[in-house]
């Protein structure tokens, strides 16, 4: 059974990364909070989960990813219409004092919503967690080529959507 300090340490070291990834993946703050609680509940009741983990961050991201997939499916079955599902999305990025940058972030959020969740997961881990494709493949349990191709498809879609705005602010 992990001591309270271990849970505290795990939370302080990894919760922010988990929050960003889960928020971008689920696009729902409420689900993100529930998932974070579920992750730490499992760590508290089954400390052996982390015993064999080579990389704590990768293990926790993988656990969060698996739990998030179930959460997305549950929310999709609850939502009666696609527009209702789209309306429930929450932004991933912090507000910016620069209006042009804020407009870019809003457009980026909208572009990420349009990506399939699995492409969105890879893009987030590559851009905002700085993982290599090998680490991403290991974290998500997918082949290396699949990780690379999902990233490429996701980035190309974002590039096509955001190019006009990006060129304006350059």
């Amino acid at each position, binding site marked *: 059974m992990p001591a309270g300090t271990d849970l505290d340490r795990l939370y302080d070291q990894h919760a922010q990364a988990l*929050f960003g990834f889960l928020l971008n993946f689920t696009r729902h703050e409420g689900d993100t909070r529930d998932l974070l609680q579920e992750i730490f*509940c499992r760590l*508290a009741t089954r400390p052996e989960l982390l015993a064999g983990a080579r990389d704590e961050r990768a293990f926790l991201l993988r656990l969060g990813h698996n739990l998030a997939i179930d959460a997305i499916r549950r929310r999709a079955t609850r939502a009666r219409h696609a527009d209702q599902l789209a309306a429930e999305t929450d932004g991933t990025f912090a507000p910016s004092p620069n209006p042009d940058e804020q407009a870019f972030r809003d457009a980026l959020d909208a572009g990420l919503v349009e990506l399939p969740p699995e492409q969105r997961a890879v893009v987030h881990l590559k851009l905002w967690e700085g993982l290599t494709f090998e680490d991403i493949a290991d974290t998500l349990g997918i082949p290396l080529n699949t990780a690379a191709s999902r990233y490429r498809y996701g980035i190309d879609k974002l590039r096509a959507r955001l190019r006009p705005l990006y060129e304006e602010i350059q």
Partner: protein
Amino acid sequence: MKPDDFENHLARQSVRILPPEWREEILRAAQAATPSVRGCSPVPARVAPWWHEWLWPAPSAWAGLAAAWIAVVALNQLAAPPSASVQFARTGGRTPSVLALWFDQGAWMAQITTSPAERTERPRRGTNAPRSEVRPMVREA
């Protein structure tokens, strides 16, 4: 693969900060869940028997294996030839060899109970003799 300027610009966008008030709530909930098994393992680790650790990681695999064995045994039972007692019950004891013996015995009994005269005069059943040729059967005293 080196990221281009566009990717670098995306990476510089700041992700939202985790709400600070969540820390206490989540850690308190995790600590409260420690002595119970709410939502996690169905059997507390401290009271789990030895077989739980062996079976639980893959209960569906073990259940599938058991179901496969049951199916194999059931199919084997269905495909097996019936036992001697089952066969006797189905035919009422009248196996082909027994039936053949029965008819032979009946023919033999018919032979020893009728006289040679009767055997020759009495038309056999099923013959095609005209009715005028049929003589009533009269037993000699």
